[in-house]
């Protein structure tokens, strides 16, 4: 322990007031933290985006010597205006868990042995070459993350797609954002929200669709509460499957049965049309109507494939389609009263009200995730409440750079930094910027995340490099994928900062630099790119993920494509990456601007950020003379989709009679590998639990804290019951936070996914309960 209490007390005694305090109140220890020895007591403050969620709060990191010692909210950052959440305030403590991985490890005769990092990098490069030679280029894969910095994802894409010639670069954002992307692409032809967080202060009504923002996006939720308090006439509606902290703060909480949000969204549109609340001129000028395939499946079988076939329909045909979704019919499907459906429709339909919808995992982790995204856009398009301040369908992200690194850099197996691999022009642009032959870039997309881990299990993939993510907690139907990763002739490399269940399956562990131990950029939910400098040095031999990939690329002979020096590689990579987005729809800010500001929104055109897209008042990419221009589609018109209600992949039945829903809590972020090492967060939420409705608990005969076994067709977990705890599920549903590696709830969940986005549904499968 580096604490030097003696010297501290001596210093303290120098101050008469402190001395008086110590003598007045003896026996009480001083500050709740160890004090830096020999520190000047001076702090310098440096800006960074927060490490955790997709909100992208600006933090100021206080540094003393070579250590981060404090945090405050960055008042210059428009996202959070100086306020953080408990995770942000204590984020720097996540750097200092005693079990940081500081040396590379390699599996030798079954045991992990520390080796110099150079040796580990040599081995990785050799394994990649060897595996490609023996099993073909698509047998090697990179599985990254929405916590990758933008340069991390960019060099991974360049190495695998440009140099090695396999599209096998996939990221965990498939598990959180894929439905948002396909929702945007099918409705607007271009990804990412049209609005920005300022919508919160402009909106009269905010509806959270299956989104417990009070815990998951607390800083934005505080902005909503502050706006309601200031303006008095603001209404917050919580539309969810479970009662949460957000429900408590909302003006009204409306519960629906799992998956029936599809029916309710259609019923809202039915009511909007029936009451003549349609913004006719907007709909005529800026939208077209379409339908796609129905009964589209759930993807639970290997090699599942699906391609939608859009067809044009008329407004009249759309109206006919909606006849199945009268509030009275939907009440029977959804459990939401016709009165509440009409109330929701009246809020969206009232021409005097500005309405913003927020959603995140509730709509994205959904076997019809793309559809429900489409359907909420329908509501905003029919009423013309879009792309203007306060009128915003707003898809939030859960990871700090799900937008920046995965969606913008395109680290998915069908994507390129600009466009898709199937498009020849996009391949040509990539080949030109990457300085590789265009024939290197394979026009055929490879595996989405679930199928990638199935391919690892089957042996189609033999080498996988996992960076900044913990799939051995987060994969649904986990047991199959862990057993697959552990098979004899699979080689798994894991770059991480702490030991996790994923490092346990690794053949090589690389020590990674974390967050502010490296320079990088994140991209948040509102198209904001946020740069951070290296603020403190990484421990031991830890190295940034970007530099790990560069080292391996050079060992594989790609020195021409990876020429940068360690002093300036981030800036050089950014300027090269920016070439992909050199147009008014996507333009990114130059490196020098990013360095100066607490985040810059793209499109960044003529030195200005774009706050609302598709609206010529704010967006210079729009055609002049229009009042809206949805330029993602060729004709400048957004698509309204007829999408039906279809049930979940697995619903409760006589044998498995409960829904299982999973998610997060405010204290822990994702799998807890960082937040559980922050004392205050672990001490506030030391372990996971299963939330049960009080009446179900009574039927089961369990009281608060007693153990319950949760059993599905795939596995079981036994954990403590939480009754009237943080959240309360309705009868027939249980909820489990997934952060705790001692209770791997994903061994119970189902790997069904949205056939369009391929994003799994972690919110719905069938389980039964036993008192344990």
């Amino acid at each position, binding site marked *: 322990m580096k*604490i030097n209490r003696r010297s501290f007390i001596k*210093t*303290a005694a120098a*101050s*008469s*007031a402190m001395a*008086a*305090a*110590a003598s*007045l*109140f003896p026996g009480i220890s*001083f*500050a709740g*933290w*160890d*004090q*830096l020895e020999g*520190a000047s007591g001076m*702090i*310098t403050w440096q800006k960074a985006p927060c490490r955790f969620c997709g909100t992208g709060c600006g933090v100021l990191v*206080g540094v003393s010597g070579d250590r981060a*010692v*404090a*945090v*405050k909210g960055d008042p210059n950052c428009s996202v959070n205006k*100086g*306020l953080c959440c*408990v995770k942000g*305030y*204590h984020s720097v*403590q996540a750097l*200092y*868990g*005693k*079990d940081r991985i500081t040396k590379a490890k390699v599996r030798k005769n079954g045991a992990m042995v520390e080796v110099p990092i150079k040796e580990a990098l040599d081995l990785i490069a050799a394994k990649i070459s060897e595996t490609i030679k023996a099993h073909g280029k698509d047998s090697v894969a990179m599985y990254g993350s929405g916590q990758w910095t933008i340069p991390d994802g960019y060099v991974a894409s360049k190495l695998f797609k440009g140099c090695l010639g396999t599209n096998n670069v996939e990221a965990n954002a498939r598990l959180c954002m894929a439905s948002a992307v396909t929702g945007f692409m099918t409705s607007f032809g271009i990804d990412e929200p049209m609005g920005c967080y300022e919508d919160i202060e402009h909106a009269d009504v905010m509806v959270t669709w299956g989104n417990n923002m*009070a815990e998951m996006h607390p800083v934005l*939720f*505080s902005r909503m509460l*502050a706006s309601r308090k200031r303006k008095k006439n603001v209404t917050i509606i919580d539309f969810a499957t479970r*009662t949460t*902290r957000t429900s*408590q*703060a*909302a*003006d*009204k*909480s*409306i*519960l629906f049965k799992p998956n029936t949000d599809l029916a309710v969204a259609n019923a809202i549109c039915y009511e909007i049309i029936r009451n003549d609340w349609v913004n006719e001129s907007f709909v005529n000028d800026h939208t077209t109507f379409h339908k796609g395939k129905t009964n589209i499946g759930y993807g639970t079988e290997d090699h599942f494939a699906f391609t939608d076939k859009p067809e044009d329909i008329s407004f009249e045909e759309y109206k006919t389609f909606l006849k199945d979704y009268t509030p009275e019919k939907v009440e029977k499907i959804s459990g939401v009263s016709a009165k509440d459906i009409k109330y929701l429709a009246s809020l969206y339909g009232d021409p005097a009200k500005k309405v913003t919808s927020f959603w995140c995992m509730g709509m994205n982790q959904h076997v019809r995730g793309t559809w429900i995204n489409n359907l909420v856009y329908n509501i905003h398009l029919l009423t013309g409440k879009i792309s203007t301040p306060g009128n915003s369908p707003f898809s939030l992200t859960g990871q700090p750079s799900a937008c920046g690194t995965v969606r913008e850099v395109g680290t998915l197996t069908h994507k390129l930094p600009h466009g898709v691999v199937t498009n020849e022009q996009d391949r040509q642009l990539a080949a030109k910027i990457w300085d590789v032959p265009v024939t290197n870039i394979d026009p055929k997309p490879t595996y989405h995340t679930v199928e990638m881990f199935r391919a690892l299990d089957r042996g189609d993939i033999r080498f996988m490099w996992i960076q900044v993510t913990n799939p051995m907690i987060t994969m649904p139907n986990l047991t199959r994928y862990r057993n697959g990763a552990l098979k004899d002739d699979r080689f798994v490399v894991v770059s991480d900062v702490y030991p996790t269940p994923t490092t346990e399956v690794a053949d090589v562990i690389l020590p990674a630099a974390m967050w502010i131990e490296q320079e990088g950029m994140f991209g948040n939910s509102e198209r904001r790119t946020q740069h951070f400098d290296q603020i403190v040095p990484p421990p031991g031999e830890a190295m940034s993920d970007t530099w790990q990939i560069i080292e391996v690329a050079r060992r594989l002979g790609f020195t021409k494509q990876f020429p940068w020096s360690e002093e300036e590689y981030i800036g050089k990579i950014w300027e090269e990456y920016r070439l992909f987005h050199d147009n008014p729809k996507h333009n990114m800010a130059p490196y020098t601007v990013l360095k100066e500001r607490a985040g810059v929104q793209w499109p960044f055109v003529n030195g200005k950020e774009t706050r609302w897209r598709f609206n010529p008042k704010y967006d210079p990419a729009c055609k002049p003379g229009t009042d809206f221009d949805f330029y993602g589609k060729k004709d400048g018109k957004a698509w309204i989709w007829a999408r039906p209600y279809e049930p979940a992949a697995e619903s409760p039945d006589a044998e498995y009679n409960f829904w299982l829903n999973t998610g997060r809590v405010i*204290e822990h972020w994702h799998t807890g590998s960082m937040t559980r*090492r922050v*004392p*205050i967060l*672990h001490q*506030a939420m*030391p372990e996971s639990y299963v939330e049960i409705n009080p009446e179900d608990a009574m039927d089961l005969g369990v009281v608060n804290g007693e153990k319950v076994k949760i059993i599905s067709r795939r596995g079981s977990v036994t954990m403590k019951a939480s009754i*009237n*705890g*943080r959240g*309360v599920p309705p009868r027939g549903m249980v909820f489990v936070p997934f952060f705790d590696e001692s209770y791997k709830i994903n061994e119970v969940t189902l790997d069904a996914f949205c056939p369009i986005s391929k994003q799994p549904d972690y919110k719905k499968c069938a389980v039964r309960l036993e008192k344990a």
Partner: protein
Amino acid sequence: MMNRKNRIRSPQRGLSHAPSPAAGSFKKIFGSVMLVLTAGCISGIFMALPALAAPDIPPGFDSGGEKIFNRFTETPLAAMTGTDGTRNLNSFYELRQYPGSPPRIPHSVPFFFRDDTADCLACHGKGGYDARQNTYIPVTPHPENENCLQCHMPRRTDTLFVETDWQSISPPKLGRSQLGGSPPPIPHSLQLREDCIACHTGPGAVAEIRVEHASRGNCRQCHVPMVATEPLSTFQRNNEPGH
């Protein structure tokens, strides 16, 4: 389904309320706990009376003068003097991870569902004496932030998941007047701590930093922020055009 506005209109919000029909389980449990406590106190006082009175002397002589003594015995000294002094810089920093971090919640927060944040402000909005903990309640300097549990966490275990190597700087020193007797500067950032009166006055204030001249409302007339932990940059005059 709940309606927030209905709940807020309930006159029985806060600490001392009885359970309202609209309130849920936490309020019911909490309310009944309070009722039991209150009932206990009241019966304590009245049961004491017959025991004290001598035989044949009816209770209530001298204008019921025993009440004074009984009340004096029943009322904790802290509640009468307005200074229990238990909140001091040591306990203040014990709740923090570094100077300026949001403090953790040092008392239990029911892990029931309805630990909603308006309940925090019932006590921490205006302060006052809390009989359960026999202490004065500190007042929040930022009551406008309603989502309290966004930043403040109770502790449910003393153990750690993994040992930590966390260290931070020492807290700022007090009483750093530039001249003998001159008003000391403010040694912390004003971010979220703009309201001097909330923390530096009243019985809930930290003993060492409680001011005795609170009646002079314009604090920053004499005290200016000197964020003592930040290095001073040297001022350079620049009269070049464009500056």
